[in-house]
């Protein structure tokens, strides 16, 4: 197989795009694609301050690398979750993220959940029984809250995450199986800013996870290869595998699932009924907007955890 651009031996073949490229041209193609989607979905400009949530995984580190190469002003945010039983997942991913930032002279903000709340993620989920032993829901809640806090406190206009097409298609698949209208309504490349919350964007939302892996490998980015020990057996991974079966027989199926969803939503398929428009008010403890009366979900959880 030959590179479409130069005719040299191809390093990556993308059946979904009927496109094969050599290393050199692949490493140009990916940032050009990302730039195209940043513009298409009006994610941010080169004048805005961007905070990239980095986990030490291939997607978020590649995103940071790409934004840097494209000339955007992007600092990193690493959230130390304290997941270190068995394999040293958190310490190893933090080390890789710090090395990545240092090598490129990029600014990295680090938040330690244990210092913030008095407990690690595994301890928080045990103390609150949230998610019945599964730490993922606690982790998601804590990460969202801390990302919002840092973005607000340090004046970042935009919060960027490394969600790729496979992540988005898996979430969409899950929300479609249950027809979770409110989640479907909010899923997309951009979640606009609301009072107290920065705009959230997913610049990799149209890049396949396989494409992001090829990018990380060809760029020589050192990332954490092991899955988070709590994610092993997660439903989202099962959905990804199912969608890959589909993709294998019908190249492009994942992309078309996601894009036809975005198109349908734009045409008003999930138009928001006035009735579910929620009143938001600031949490009396942390000030972040919340729909529930009283404390936000994060503050409720951490105060409960600390009284047990």
């Amino acid at each position, binding site marked *: *197989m030959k590179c479409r651009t130069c005719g040299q031996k*191809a*390093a*990556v*073949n993308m059946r979904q795009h009927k496109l*094969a490229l050599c*290393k050199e041209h692949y490493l140009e193609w990916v940032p050009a694609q990302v730039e195209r989607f940043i513009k298409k979905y009006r994610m941010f400009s080169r004048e805005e301050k961007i905070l990239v949530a980095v*986990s*030490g*995984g*291939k997607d*978020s580190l590649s995103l940071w690398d790409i934004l840097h190469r494209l000339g955007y002003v992007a600092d990193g945010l690493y959230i130390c979750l304290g997941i270190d039983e068995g394999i040293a997942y958190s310490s190893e*991913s933090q080390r890789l993220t710090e090395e990545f930032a240092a090598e490129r002279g990029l600014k990295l903000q680090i938040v330690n959940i244990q210092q913030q709340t008095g407990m690690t993620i595994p301890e928080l989920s045990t103390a609150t029984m949230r998610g019945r032993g599964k730490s993922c829901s606690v982790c998601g809640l804590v990460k969202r809250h801390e990302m919002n806090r840092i973005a607000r406190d340090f004046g970042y206009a935009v919060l960027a995450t490394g969600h790729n097409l*496979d992540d988005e298609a898996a979430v969409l698949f899950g929300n479609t199986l249950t027809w979770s209208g409110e989640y479907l309504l909010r899923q997309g490349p951009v979640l606009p800013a609301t009072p107290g919350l920065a705009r959230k964007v997913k610049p990799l939302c149209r890049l396949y*996870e*396989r494409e992001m*892996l*090829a990018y990380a*490998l*060809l760029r020589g980015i050192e990332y*954490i*290869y*092991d*899955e*988070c020990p*709590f*994610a*092993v057996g*997660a439903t989202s*991974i099962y959905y*990804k*595998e199912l969608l*890959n*079966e589909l*993709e*294998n027989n019908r190249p492009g199926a994942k992309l078309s699932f996601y894009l036809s969803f975005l198109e349908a939503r734009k045409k008003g398929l999930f138009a928001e009924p006035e009735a579910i428009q929620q009143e938001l008010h600031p949490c009396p403890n942390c000030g972040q907007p919340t729909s529930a009366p009283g404390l936000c979900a994060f503050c409720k959880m951490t105060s409960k955890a600390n009284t047990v």
Partner: protein
Amino acid sequence: MVKIILRGKEYEVRPGMTLLSALKRIDILPESVIATRDGELIVEDEILREGETIKLVAVISGG
């Protein structure tokens, strides 16, 4: 024979077949991995050679 490794698990296939046929033979979805030979990425139509080791990198990772 050709050795194929994924997440510490080893498989063996006959040389002379393409990467795509080899992946089918050992029941691994091409969409779920990227194949490397001596650190270089190879694509599906690559012919596998006697005695070599192909390392597969899993696409799905958490976080």
